[in-house]
């Protein structure tokens, strides 16, 4: 039986280390290669021992696919490719390819410089790893080899995030990665066509979550910013270059306009430096509204939001430019600022944080997860006294707010996606099957699909019945049509033919044609059965009795009495002979070809019952 096998790798059940091994049609694919940010030991990596047992990874794996740039999906990639050893292709979308190495490098710096880790992947390893990357476009079918193909679908969630379809022949698997079914202010919603994969793989945590609406999350952010500004405080929002910053800028701009607010918002030019580079990547990945609004202008050009030069962060007012290239002039004090980097571990955001941390009127809004060792992580853990460089202790009196803007699907979203793709089976990772009976039942009932929930390290095997297209020869079709019966979808008919598999071609031809093509002569098989009858008359009379009997019984068949005394029923031959030792016993020789087996057997059993008494 052909089968698809899925094994989520890694120990523990927590979300945060995505890495799934899929075997399909003889191909082996690794989906994502994430790092668990909560651990500093080997528990942070997926358990690759499962696949290294099979020999060299490059030989075993046909490809690796990365869904998006979040570290819990790509954080272990350089370790995997350069330290464990894998030289095959790594597929991801273009924005992922552009952003991944930056995040990996940031993470590496923090781990080595701030946490003093040894045996971590190096900058060179990140570069070498990225050399193996092959970028893919949305909805573009990519041939990994002549049997395996992959296709990326828009997933929303973050810039460049994709859901992937993996196909071998007529079997396919769809992996969702992280996705979002409701559009953002800067990203659209995930979408997939009715591709009907054998299996859809997605996160179990989505299915057990009922999400607070996007509006309410935004409201909370606006309220905090607004209240802080109203009471004369300052708001620092550390962000990673793109995506989240864009989203929040659009949000603030929209509401500043509506609420007629004057307090200017600033973003550091550290963000805009990369802007033009990402701009080209970004636009095909945004939603329609953004494209319409921003395609004509620089996407960081807002009415209320301005860039400020880092060089002047310390002066009473920063040098302000309107737009990227306007003339610089001394502007008012910073009040609301977007600055990089996102985890407050270095650079401008940390600089501003140090200046503003001492006042309780100020606020810092952390919009995402911070890696251990960063200032961001410390303040989010509740630390209020921080040891900075030079043994200086910084007392944090400013309000610390942790907000999550990550757009994820929830129970409703999963149902929507399953409704779109129409998979035969659903597999949920990162859940505990024992504890999820209700969820399993719900999915199975709603969609009439089977639902699987493997533990990490556990393999789920699905049997599939792939349909193989076969070409039928014209001659064979014509012959069937000649039988006079019209094709009926409700009444399948048995068709005899020979299946010829040549190269990657499947054809159904008549047996004669097959033999001809193969240059083979057909064997003739003939069966002969002896039926003993008690009859004292001569053979010719016995034969006549047989003929009369069969003629009256077998009204649908052609029964003939030949001049030589033998009887034929269709092509079956019956001859009467005298028994060599007992003249009162006659022996009927019933002979037929193997094609007439059914009739032959029937005739034999009929004759064995004896003949009616002659009148």
């Amino acid at each position, binding site marked *: 039986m052909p089968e698809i096998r899925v094994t989520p790798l890694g120990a523990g059940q927590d979300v945060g280390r995505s890495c799934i091994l899929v075997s399909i049609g003889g191909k082996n694919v690794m989906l994502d290669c994430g790092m668990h940010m909560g651990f500093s030991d080997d528990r942070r990596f997926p358990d690759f021992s499962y696949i290294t047992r099979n020999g060299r990874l490059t030989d075993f794996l046909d490809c690796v696919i990365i869904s998006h740039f979040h570290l819990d999906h790509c954080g272990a990639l350089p370790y995997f490719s350069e330290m464990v050893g894998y030289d095959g292709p790594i597929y991801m979308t273009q924005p992922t390819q552009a952003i991944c190495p930056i995040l990996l490098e940031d993470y590496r710096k923090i781990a080595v410089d701030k946490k003093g880790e040894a045996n971590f992947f190096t900058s060179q390893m990140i570069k070498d790893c990225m050399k193996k990357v092959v970028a893919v476009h949305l909805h573009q079918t990519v041939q990994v080899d002549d049997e395996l193909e992959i296709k990326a679908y828009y997933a929303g969630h973050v810039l460049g995030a994709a859901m992937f379809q993996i196909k071998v022949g007529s079997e396919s698997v769809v992996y969702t990665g992280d996705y979002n079914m409701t559009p953002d202010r800067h990203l659209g919603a995930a979408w997939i066509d009715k591709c009907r994969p054998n299996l859809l793989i997605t996160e179990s945590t989505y*299915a*057990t*979550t*009922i*999400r*607070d*609406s996007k*509006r*309410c*999350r*935004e*409201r*909370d952010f*606006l*309220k905090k910013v*607004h209240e802080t500004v109203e009471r004369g405080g300052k708001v620092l929002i550390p962000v990673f270059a793109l995506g989240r910053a864009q989203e929040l800028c659009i949000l603030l701009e929209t*509401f500043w306009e*509506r*609420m007629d607010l004057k307090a200017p918002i600033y973003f550091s030019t550290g963000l805009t430096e990369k802007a033009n580079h990402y701009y080209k990547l970004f636009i095909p990945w945004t939603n329609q509204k953004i494209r319409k609004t921003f395609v004509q202008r620089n996407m960081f050009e807002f009415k209320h939001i301005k860039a400020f030069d880092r060089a002047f962060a310390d002066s009473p007012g920063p040098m302000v430019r309107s737009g990227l290239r306007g003339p610089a002039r001394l502007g008012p004090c910073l009040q609301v600022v977007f600055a990089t980097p996102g985890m407050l571990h270095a650079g401008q955001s940390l600089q501003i944080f140090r200046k503003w941390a001492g006042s309780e009127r100020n606020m810092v809004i952390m919009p995402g997860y911070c890696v251990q060792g960063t200032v961001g992580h410390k303040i*989010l*853990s*509740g630390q209020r006294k921080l040891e900075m460089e030079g043994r200086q202790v910084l007392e944090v009196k400013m*309000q*610390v*707010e*942790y*907000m*999550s803007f990550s757009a994820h699907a*929830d*129970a*409703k979203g999963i*149902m929507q996606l399953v409704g779109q793709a129409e998979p035969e089976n659903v597999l949920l990772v990162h859940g505990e099957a*024992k*504890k*999820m*009976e*209700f*969820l399993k*039942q*719900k999915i199975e*009932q709603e969609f009439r699909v089977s639902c699987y929930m493997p533990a990490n390290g556990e393999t789920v095997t699905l049997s599939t019945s792939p349909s193989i297209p076969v070409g039928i020869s014209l001659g064979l079709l014509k012959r069937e049509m000649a039988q006079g019966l019209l094709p009926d979808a409700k009444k399948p008919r048995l068709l005899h033919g020979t299946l010829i598999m040549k190269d990657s071609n499947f054809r159904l031809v008549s047996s004669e044609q097959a033999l001809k093509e193969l240059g083979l002569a057909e064997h003739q098989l003939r069966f002969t059965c002896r039926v003993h009858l008690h009859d004292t008359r001569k053979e010719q009379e016995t034969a006549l009795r047989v003929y009369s009997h069969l003629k009256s019984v077998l009204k649908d068949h052609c029964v003939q009495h030949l001049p030589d005394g033998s009887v034929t029923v269709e092509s079956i031959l019956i001859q009467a002979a005298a028994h060599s030792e007992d003249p009162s016993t006659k022996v009927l020789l019933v002979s037929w070809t193997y094609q007439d087996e059914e009739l032959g057997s029937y005739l034999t059993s009929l004759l064995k019952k004896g003949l009616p008494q002659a009148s």
Partner: protein
Amino acid sequence: MESAEDWLVESLRLYQDFHAFDLSGATRVLEWMGDKGILVAGYESLKKNEILHLILPLRLSVKENQGLFPERDFKVRHGGFSDRSVFALKHVPDTRLLVTSGLPGCYLQVWQVAEDTDVIKAVSTIDVHETEGSLWSRVAIFSSAAPGVLHGVRLSSLKVVDLESQKTTYTSGVGDSELLSSLQVLDADTFAFCCTSGRLGLVDTRQKGLQGAQEGACSLVISLAPAVKVAHRKAPGFDGTVQVYDVTSWDGMWGRVDPLFTHRGHIFLDDNGVDTAPLVTTHTWHPDKPRTLLSAASDASLHVWDWVDLRASC
């Protein structure tokens, strides 16, 4: 929707916190299980309804440092399927048992919330003798070492049944066939009832008959906040708002009283695009946060909100 955006801007001023959720099906019940979980249940006819045990998002259940918890989402901790519509659901305190009432079929269903899986399973039923098929029994729980289920469709059929033994421990003993609209247990021996006619009464289960009845006193569904401000929701079918009143400011006169606050979120955030605005089906107070309410509406929305007392800012 334009007005939704406007309302959201208004909401910055009106609410401290505000959360809006979309359930898979509208609920008429909001019952607490512990102080961190709530139970909801569907009431659609002719389909399988879900009973869900939802765990409050951390941001709503922590008492301090709320700002450090970004989690704003409910987690589905347990779920079960009901073939009937669920109109009432009560948790039996200090147990893992639930009692529901609904239609079709006049009986109460007892459920068990599993410990090691996420399943809510039907375990037994309690008979309610009522011949009229369209009526459903009201329910309340006497919580004690041996919990009792108070139920009834009419005054005459009021009963208390011991949950474990299924023995009847109290019957009203009255012939009055007036229909009940709600039941509320007050202490180990007393409960209040409200009839559809508006009649309000108190019962001491140690005595025979019904005591203290008042006409026209309870046409409204009320609930008491832990800090004695009252949330009030007009009887189902009225509108899509929840109104908060302060009983401490009432001087005993039943004249026109203005609400302290009116929650209109269910009307303005209705994304369905249908002409009729959703109706609020139920509400409940947060056990620890004095101004936080949860309200549900017929469009399957569930709001958690903490209103701002505008008087306090004067």
